[in-house]
Each structure stands twice: as structure tokens, then as C-alpha cells.
């Protein structure tokens, strides 16, 4: 990768740290495109503060995120510092945490006050009372809903909000427009609300994605980060996908694999048909592709480091839970392969992702299926290649989609537009399509 990119990224990180630590602003926002070193930034900031004796709290959204952060923090903090992992009573401490000497796990925040760093989920923090930390870091802040920020805002004096604006918005089981247009609309994301109430807060952007291959830079940036964009650290040729074995015969799946290997993208196009969400044929195709990658002994090279792609390094992404369940069934013999919905794949990274296109086999698109964040998550988890499986007719579906979205006054327009993003991605995939 080019050094100036690294330097540029480093410069931004330093600016962020200065901006935050200067105490000039109560809040500093950091937008991070996929794999741009969000967690690294969180850990680095935490260590920087903790090692000069500052006390801070860290907020993440899911227990898994919290445990991930705890693990990497525990490895990063200088000796003598301890990390307090605040948990709910239902929480069972995973093995990987049990091993860590400098991590205290407790239900009661009172027992963790000796820790320089206390970390917990937003939900857990909401039940901490009458304590206040001088510093806070909120991770995955775009997945957090504005009202849950309201519940914990009194716990800190100033905070660093880190997150990926391109990912899925938080949602609610309630449909109600009464708060539309209010700066503090509780249904919006924490960051969106924060910035509407505090428009002068500095917003930084991590400029470089360390995860995505060069082949993903253009399409992902134009589709999902239209006004900001980003660069990939990997340059053409930095990443390479090869196979230990040669193709068996001349099957379309092998054609797909070589397209993916050559370009980093593949669109496996099944014949047109209107199907249920759990389109057995499509699910089958997804499973076949996964298997073939493994059978062919796919090897991922990144820079000078080459490793065979194991099942753990492969993810299957879907829109609906039912689809994930069906795919898991189809891959029952490969439990190491991650099979999940976009919501749960947020923030994860793999060598290969195989995606069941949210619009595959549908007769019409709903806001859910068009949501830009969903497609963004699905098409930006990979280091090497992303293969999308879908049926003929998605483009026609998009073209025929009636745009009947209501417009609410004083509500900032959210970009990218899901429909437009889908168009962009589809046009891109079309150049990589292999007919099943």
C-alpha cells in the first residue's frame, strides 16, 4: 500500500486525538467507512487517555462488541491499568475474557471504580446512576438510537462518537410520525440527533479502508459514501485470490469463482422467478458457491502474507432471518461459516462474503429491501471478494419501483438514497455476472 495513504490516515487520527483531548469540544464525531480502523482508534484513544491517568467509560452496542473491545484493550493497555467490564446479571462471561488478568467483570459498577477504563453496552450503562466520567468513547454510535444516548448522556462530560454512517439505522417496533422534524427525534441515530442539536461539533472522517480490496473502492464509495468517499489502502495487486486446485470441468460456479478471483466481484444470476424469501434454489446456489470456494482450496494473499481461506473466513449474508436460517440449514456441515443477516454482520470482517441479494426473486421492493445500509453492510465485509447471488429481474424491479416516499419538513435528507445505491451496485454487479 502507498505510504502517503498511511501517513494521511495517521494525520487524521492525530487530529482526532488532539481535537478530543484538547477539551475544546464536548463531543467529537468520527465517521468511519468500512474497515477504516474504527476499533483501533477506540483502543488507541482509550490507552492514550488511561495511560496519563484519565478515567474513561466506553460504550458499545452489543455484548459481543463490548467483549471484542475488552479483549483488544486488555492487550493494548500498559501494565498496571485494569479494565472494568460492567455486565448485566444475565451475562455469562465468555472464555476469552476469563483468561485476561487485567479485566474485571462485575454486575455492580461500584466494584469497578478502581478501573481506569469501564466498558459496557449502552443498555447496561443506562442503569448506572449518579456517576460521571470525564471522558467517554461511544463505539458504533450510528447503531445507537438517540433516546438511548439521552439515557446515558449524564454519565460523561465529553465524548468521542465513533461509527459508520453507511450502516443500518436503528429501528423501532413503533410507527409514529409525531417526532418527525424535531432535532431530538428519539427514533433517529444518536449521532444524527447529536449533530442536529450541536451543529458546530467537529466531524472527522477516517480516510482509508484497510479492509476492502482496491476492487471495492469505487463502487462502495460511490454507492454508499457519495459525498465523502474514501480510499482503500490496498492497491490493485496488493490482494490476490487464487485456488489450490483447478476448476472441475466448465461449470458456471467455477466461472463465477474465477470472475471473483480476477475482479473481486461476482454476480451469480439465477433465472427469473418470483419466489418466497427463502428461495430454495437461491439458497442452494449460495451454499454451492461457499462449498466450491473451500473445495477449490482458495488462498488469500494480502501483501506478502498468503493464507488458505478457511470456513471461518467466509460469511454468508442475507436480508431476512428466515433466509439466514435456510442458508444455515444448507450449510449444516460447515458450522464455521458465518451465516447471518446484515444487522448482525455489521462491523465484522471476512476474506470472502457470499450475499443473497435482498431483491432477488421479489416482485416489488419495500423500504426495508432498498435500505442503503443493508446493502452496504452486505457488500463491504470482504477483504478479497464479494459474490452476490440473485435472480434475473432486479434491475427491472428497480426501474419500475414507484417512488412514493413521504417527505417530512425539517428532517435532514438521508444519503445515500437506497434506491439510487441499489442502482449503482446493480450496474456494477452486472459487469461481473455469470449466468447460473
Amino acid at each position: 500500500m502507498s505510504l502517503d495513504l498511511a501517513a494521511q490516515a495517521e494525520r487524521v487520527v492525530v487530529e482526532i486525538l488532539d481535537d478530543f483531548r484538547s477539551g475544546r469540544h464536548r463531543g467529537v464525531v468520527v465517521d468511519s467507512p468500512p474497515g477504516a480502523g474504527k476499533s483501533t482508534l477506540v483502543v488507541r484513544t482509550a490507552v492514550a487517555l488511561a495511560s496519563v491517568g484519565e478515567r474513561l467509560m466506553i460504550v458499545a452496542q452489543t455484548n459481543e462488541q463490548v467483549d471484542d473491545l475488552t479483549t483488544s484493550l486488555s492487550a493494548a493497555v500498559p501494565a498496571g491499568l485494569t479494565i472494568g467490564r460492567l455486565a448485566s446479571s444475565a451475562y455469562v462471561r465468555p472464555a476469552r475474557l476469563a483468561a485476561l488478568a487485567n479485566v474485571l467483570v462485575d454486575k455492580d459498577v461500584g466494584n469497578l471504580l478502581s478501573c481506569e477504563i469501564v466498558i459496557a453496552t449502552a443498555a447496561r450503562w443506562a442503569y448506572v446512576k449518579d456517576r460521571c466520567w470525564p471522558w467517554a468513547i461511544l463505539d458504533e454510535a450510528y447503531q445507537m438510537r438517540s433516546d438511548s444516548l439521552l439515557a446515558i448522556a449524564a454519565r460523561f462530560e465529553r465524548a468521542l462518537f465513533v461509527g459508520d454512517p453507511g450502516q443500518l439505522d436503528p429501528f423501532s417496533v413503533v410507527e409514529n410520525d409525531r417526532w418527525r422534524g424535531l432535532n431530538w427525534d428519539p427514533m433517529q441515530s444518536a449521532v444524527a440527533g447529536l449533530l442536529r442539536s450541536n451543529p458546530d461539533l467537529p466531524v472527522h472522517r477516517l480516510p482509508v479502508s484497510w479492509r476492502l480490496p482496491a476492487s471495492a473502492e469505487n463502487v462502495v464509495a460511490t454507492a454508499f459514501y457519495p459525498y465523502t468517499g474514501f480510499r482503500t489502502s490496498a492497491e490493485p495487486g496488493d490482494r490476490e485470490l487464487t485456488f489450490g486446485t483447478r476448476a472441475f470441468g466448465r461449470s458456471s460456479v467455477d466461472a463465477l469463482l474465477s470472475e471473483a478471483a480476477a475482479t473481486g466481484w461476482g454476480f451469480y444470476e439465477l433465472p427469473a422467478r418470483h419466489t418466497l424469501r427463502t428461495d430454495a434454489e437461491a439458497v442452494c446456489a449460495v451454499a454451492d458457491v461457499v462449498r466450491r470456494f473451500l473445495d477449490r482450496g482458495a488462498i488469500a494473499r494480502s501483501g506478502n502474507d498468503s493464507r488458505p481461506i478457511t470456513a471461518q473466513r467466509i460469511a454468508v449474508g442475507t436480508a431476512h432471518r428466515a433466509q439466514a436460517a435456510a442458508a444455515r440449514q444448507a450449510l449444516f456441515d460447515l458450522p464455521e461459516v458465518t451465516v447471518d443477516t446484515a444487522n448482525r454482520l455489521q462491523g465484522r470482517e471476512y476474506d470472502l462474503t457470499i450475499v443473497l441479494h435482498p431483491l432477488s426473486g421479489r416482485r416489488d421492493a419495500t423500504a426495508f429491501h432498498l435500505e442503503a445500509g443493508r446493502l452496504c453492510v452486505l457488500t463491504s465485509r470482504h477483504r478479497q471478494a464479494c459474490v452476490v447471488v440473485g435472480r434475473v429481474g432486479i434491475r427491472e424491479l428497480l426501474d419500475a419501483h414507484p417512488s412514493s416516499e413521504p417527505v417530512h419538513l425539517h428532517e435532514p435528507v438521508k444519503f445515500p438514497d437506497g434506491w439510487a445505491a441499489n442502482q449503482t451496485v446493480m450496474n456494477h454487479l452486472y459487469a461481473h455476472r455469470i449466468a447460473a
Partner: protein
Amino acid sequence: MSAVSSYAKALAVAAGRAVPIATRRHVYLSDRPLVFVPLALAGEANAPLAAMIGTSPHDPYMLLVPQPRNRDLRFGFAASLAEVVLAYVRSCTARFEVVGTDRLFLDAPQLLVPNAAGLGFVKLLGRSTRFRRTNGPYPVPAGVPLLGRWLTHLGERSEHPGSSAMLAMTQTLSAHWASGQSAVEDANLAALLGWIDPPEGVCGSEAALAAEDPLVWPPAGPSTDPAFDNEVLAPAIRAYQSATPDSPKRRRAVETLERELRGQMEPTWRLMWHAIKVLRRLPAAETVETRWTADRRDFSRYHDYLSTDGRPQARRDGAVAAARRLQSLEREQTTFDAARALDDPLVMASYRVTGEAFQGTVVSVDRNRRILSERGRRVTRPKVVVGTGDPVHLPVGESLRAPQRIKQNARITEIARSADGVLVTLELDGGMGRAAVPAPGSVPEVGDEITYTSVYPDAIRSPDLPPTDQTPWTHGGPPRPYVPTDDDAREAWE
């Protein structure tokens, strides 16, 4: 739309009449609901034109505004509406019980409007009247500001899932019946009832089609039929306008308006009571009473508030108010969805179709099974195996409940699929009494028909939020407390 209700719609098309999607009535129906059929003048911001209102099908009050653009006439309308509504509210406060320290009225107002637009009309009418003053500049008749507060209260209450304080008839009906037409057309009360209870010898689709003819079935409002506006209303209003006050001409103009507008509202009025009759045929669901108690509690609380503080509701929710409201709405939504399913096998059916619940027969029971708990104590954990033909899409480890034994937790320990169905093994916990052996009847028996669902009302607690005057900087800081101003009272309504 669930798989079941969609399938029911298909059945309705074939059957030529609506198909029930509920075996119970999931809303409360007062013995004397206040039925309200409002009309508004096209093109204006919620300008009342006329209304029929009352608690008995036979003697509705009729209110009208001969010149809806005239501010005073509008407030005149609001004033007479206030008389009716406030009297009704008062009538609900006759009897009360005392729960703990506070007073709980045994009755509460229930306002029934034809459709969702009707709900909107009530909310806006509340908004346009609650800030008024009966003194100072631009005074309005007594009762108007109070009307505004109550209408706003009912409007806000109606947003709470499971509340029956104010219902839109079309929504209530389509929650219990699937018609053979789309949701768009279901918004037409006459058409929807045409499917649910068509006249003798007419099939639903015909009845619905007839219902779309504004001459036969005038729109249920608040907006009127444009042709009526242009051909009847406009000339009538002009006649009123041009006639000199108190002249016979003007009296006749008013008579004409009254006759014509009555003609526009009466059919809907009859439909509303027809719909009520149809709904009464359904037995109330188990938890309806509980939810209505919540409505009564809220009503009692607000009634007390008015007698103490009584300032009008704010224009918009502040940050804390909004978050708090969202919390309770979400809580109520999940509870309501679950409760409906537990109360009503036909509602439960849609969860069975999606595999979140299943119905089957108990094939084996290990009644007195005891195991060591994490704390090392021996505890009773019976195991039952249920065989079902339903699709089961539940993971092992999921906790389920059976409607009949809602206190008893049942955790899935094993799922065995075979050609002739699914065998689900469940470990029971709780609801079996103190003794070492489960109390009689507390564990299902072999051969029992039983339903288990992953969707059940659970104690959802939500965290405390800061007090309003401590709204944090992230949400714009503490708002300025609302102080009524002359401008609120002035706000030209013309």
C-alpha cells in the same frame, strides 16, 4: 399484513364476503361510546364544516358552520361541541374506586370516529382550540380551551397500542376481518362494512363497489365529495353569505345547509352504529379489561391534572418527553401484540405459520425430573415432548410459554424433525408450586393439546431518563418551560 390475514383476504375474494381473522374482540367497547362524524371544508386547515355526535343512534346532535371561513362561527361550533363532549366526560366521572392513594374512575370516555382521517381531525381540532383563552385578547366561548385539552388527550391516548380511548372504525374492523379488497379501499367505511355485513342477497364486492358511489354513500369524511362541494355546498354557502342576517332568506339558507349536510353525514352515522353492532357480536378478549383499566387510569390521572395544573399540552414533545413516550409506546406495542395472540387462537395462527409458535400434542412427560441448579441445589425441572405438524423455526435454548400456563417457562432443549412432523423437547420451570413434586395439574399430561409460543408479554423494564430540566447538551439542553402567550390565544384561526 400477516400470512394468515393475507390468506384470509384471498378467501374473502372467493367467498364474496369478509373473513374473520379474530375470534375475539381485542378492543374495549363502551356501553355508551361517543360517536363522532366530523366534516371539514376542503382546502382549509382543519376548518370544521359540520358534525354529528352522540351516544345513541337515535338522537345525534348535529352541529354546522354555515360559513366555515368565519372565525367566530368556527368557535361557535367548537363551543357547542364542547358542551356535548364535556358533558360526556363529566358523565364518566360519576363513580370511582380508590386504588392505593389515587382515585380511579369506573368509566372513561370512548370516542369513535369513522376512519384514520377522523382521528387526525380530532387531534388538529384539539390543537387549534387548546391554547385559546376565554379572556384577554381574542376571547373564545367558555369550554373551548377545555375541549381542546380533552381532544388532545384522546388524540395522544389513541396512539398507545391497545388503547380504546379513541378508535377509528375502519382500523378496528380491519383488525378483526379481512375483506376482499386492498387496505386502500378498506379505508372506506361503507365499502369495508359492505364486505363484512353486506345487505341481503348482495355479495361483498358488489356492496363495496356501490359504496364507492358518493351519491349513494357520501364519503365518511372529514373531507367531502368534491362534486357535492361544487354543486351543493358552494351555492348554499353563497346563499347564506348574500342573505342579510336574520332575514328569512338566511334562515332558509341555513335550513338548506342543514338538510344537505345532514344528508352527507347520516349514512355514515348509521354505518358507525351498524359497525358497533357487528363488533359487539364478538366476545371481548381476556385482556381487554386490563387495557381498558389502563385507559381509565390515564383518564383519571388527566382529569386530576386538569383540576390542579391544567396548562394545555405542549405543541411538540421535548427531548425527554419524546424518549419517555417512545419507551412506553414500544413496551405497549410488544405487550399488545403478544396479548392478542395469547387471547385468540386465530391471531396465534399467524405466529404458527411463521414458526414462532406451534400447536401440538404432548407425547411424553418426565414429570418429576429433578436436576442440580447452577447453585448446586436440586430443583424440579419436568420435561415434556410435544409433537406438532406446524413448521417450527425456533432455536434450541429459546424460552416459550403456553397461553394456559403463562407463568411457566418452557425452554427448548431439543428439536427432532421427521417426515411426519417435529418433536420439540421442553424443560419446564416455575408455576409448579413449592413442593418437591409438581402440584397436580401444573404439568401438561400426555395427550394434552397445547400451544407454545416465543411471543409473550414479558416484564420489559426501560431505564430512567433525566428529568426535563436536566435535558443533556446532546439533546439541546433543558427546554424553556412552556408559558402560555397571547400569541397562542391570538393565533388567527381564519
